[in-house]
């Protein structure tokens, strides 16, 4: 088990270096003068240009610039946003909880619905249930989620007026953020109706963001369960006279979860990509929307910083999932 952990950590280092190189190279790949890009100014006088050259360190050799960049990054200095003038890292951290809340809810939605759906489809293979679940899953990941979001808005906000169109909470409520997670903060604030407002704002974005992970998890669970259900040890469990609920829910599912955990982990990347689109549609103030806005506003330091932070975050989540996989797979956890 320790060796597993160690190898995973070691493999992370080159990937991390690669990510930093990519982020570093980003600014220099942009069309135009990178100094102007970094400063966000259109035209500068030659003196100002020389000044900026020194300030940004462009007069030094490339590898030195990279090392400086790396050093800064590791200590949390990712430059300043050209638009807000605040440090990029701080901007990111302010907006990150919104995306975190949305992503967590979406993932919970996907897992809580997807695993049972996939299991039922596997147990009742070939039945109408099976076809319905699999058909829905296929439609789920064939559709563009930005369209799906717009459709839901038309239906639930436009026609039925059940849910609001945008934002995290009704503008009538205001309280200082404690955790950054609106659901928790609204409860803590004690204001009447705040929690319900936060919840109603969260529903549609959660469903939209969670649709593709839900579809993928349902399909994977079905696949894994089908394989597991035909294994000898399931037959043994049945031969012991155990009730079907225990045979499927404990003996089979536990084994089926091993490959499904990997799938759930792989969905994190999908969630980030989906967050970009979902946050744009619902005007959800998270890092997805921030990235899109930054690109349009040519706030390139923010884009560079965001790229690095998001990639590192995804990398860490993948590591955690890998470790989790090592824990729940008894062959790795209790290797001889």
């Amino acid at each position, binding site marked *: 088990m320790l060796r597993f952990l160690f190898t995973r950590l070691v493999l992370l280092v*080159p*990937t991390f270096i*690669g*990510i930093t*190189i*990519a982020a570093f190279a*980003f600014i220099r*790949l*942009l*069309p135009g003068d990178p100094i102007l890009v970094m400063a966000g100014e259109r035209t500068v006088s030659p003196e100002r240009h020389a000044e900026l050259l020194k300030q940004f360190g462009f007069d030094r050799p490339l590898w030195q610039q990279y090392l400086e960049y790396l050093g800064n990054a590791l200590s949390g200095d990712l430059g300043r946003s050209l638009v807000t003038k605040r440090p990029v890292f701080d901007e990111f951290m302010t907006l990150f909880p919104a995306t975190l809340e949305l992503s967590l809810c979406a993932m919970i939605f996907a897992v809580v619905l997807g695993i049972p759906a996939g299991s039922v489809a596997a147990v009742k*293979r070939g039945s109408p249930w099976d076809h319905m679940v699999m058909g829905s899953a*296929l*439609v789920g*990941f*064939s*559709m*563009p989620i*930005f*369209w*799906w979001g*717009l*459709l839901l*808005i*038309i239906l639930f*906000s*436009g026609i039925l007026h059940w849910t609001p169109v945008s934002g995290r909470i009704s503008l009538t409520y205001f309280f200082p953020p404690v955790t950054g997670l609106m659901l928790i903060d609204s409860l803590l604030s004690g204001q009447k109706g705040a929690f319900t407002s936060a919840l109603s704002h969260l529903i549609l974005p959660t469903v939209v963001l969670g649709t593709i992970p839900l579809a993928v998890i349902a399909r994977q669970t079905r*696949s894994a369960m*089908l394989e597991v259900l035909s294994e000898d040890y399931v037959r043994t469990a049945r031969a012991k006279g155990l009730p079907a609920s225990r045979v499927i829910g404990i003996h089979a599912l536990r084994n089926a979860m091993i490959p499904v955990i990997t799938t759930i982990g792989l969905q994190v*990347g*999908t969630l*980030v*990509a*989906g967050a*970009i*689109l979902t946050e*744009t*549609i619902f005007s959800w103030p998270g890092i997805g929307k921030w*990235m*899109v806005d930054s*690109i*349009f506003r040519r706030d390139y330091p923010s*884009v560079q910083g965001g*790229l690095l932070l*998001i*990639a590192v975050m*995804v*990398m860490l989540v993948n590591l955690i999932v890998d470790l989790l996989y090592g824990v729940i797979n008894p062959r790795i956890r209790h290797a001889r």
Partner: protein
Amino acid sequence: MTAETIHHAVIDHRRGGRLALFLEFWSYFRENRGAVAGLVVFAITCLLAIFANVIAPYGPTEQFRDALLQAPVWQEGGSTRFLLGTDAVGRDLLSRLLHGARYSLFIGCIVVSLSLVVGVLVGLFAGFIGGTVDTLIMRLMDIILAFPSLLLALTLVAVLGPSLTNAMIAIALIQQPHYVRLTRGSVLTEKTKDYVTAARVAGVGPLRLMFRTILPNCMAPLIVQGALSFSDAILGAAALGFLGMGAQPPTPEWGTMLAEAREFILRAWWVVTFPGLAILITVLAINLMGDGLRDALDPRLKRS
């Protein structure tokens, strides 16, 4: 036991050759009704796209000032002039959708061809050379995979400038790792097999070995990946178009159409619904085909 019993030898009467292989594949494929339905829909989409010029009642950028945001024919306010209604600047939705099909299929073909060709070449190369070069290439692929796909595509397009061509290049780049990994994996597996050793001993040179001996045996997963990439490319290009980083207006690309329609969702549902529906139907058809392809190409893998 008599000698006669030994002569009950089984003579394999099955037909051989490429045609027989294809027919066998086709009989498996045919069994999957979803896949066949997908194939039919996809074929229809292709035909519509190819003949869009002829079928569409109007040009995709023709504006009719007297019919702005007109409803579809079956709703109040609609007319038979514009079957699916018009958008905010009076362009016929049906015509734009038909022309949009051309863009989507074009995007799919280009992206898949590009990433397939490059990915396979790199994968073959990496698998064959092995050693440091191989490790380097795989690390590069890992780095590309470390970034969430849309995010990377977005920043690439930001670097290159928003346009449909750049969007296609960005998406093709993002799909590279899948092909490279697949091909390299297959090469590594096949490399150790006896038929490769036999070919080497017979004096087959490395290039020929790569392309004539090994590659044909890796085709099955590559074809399935190709189908998946096709639909991913369409969705990706639509997403970029929606964000304003792909095809630029007035190009009738389905994603770009959705971006333009966004402000009207509560007023004119048809401008939003139909382009997205078009994307859904096309991608669904391709995914159904892809599932069918996977099951048919290797029935042993059939999850059913």
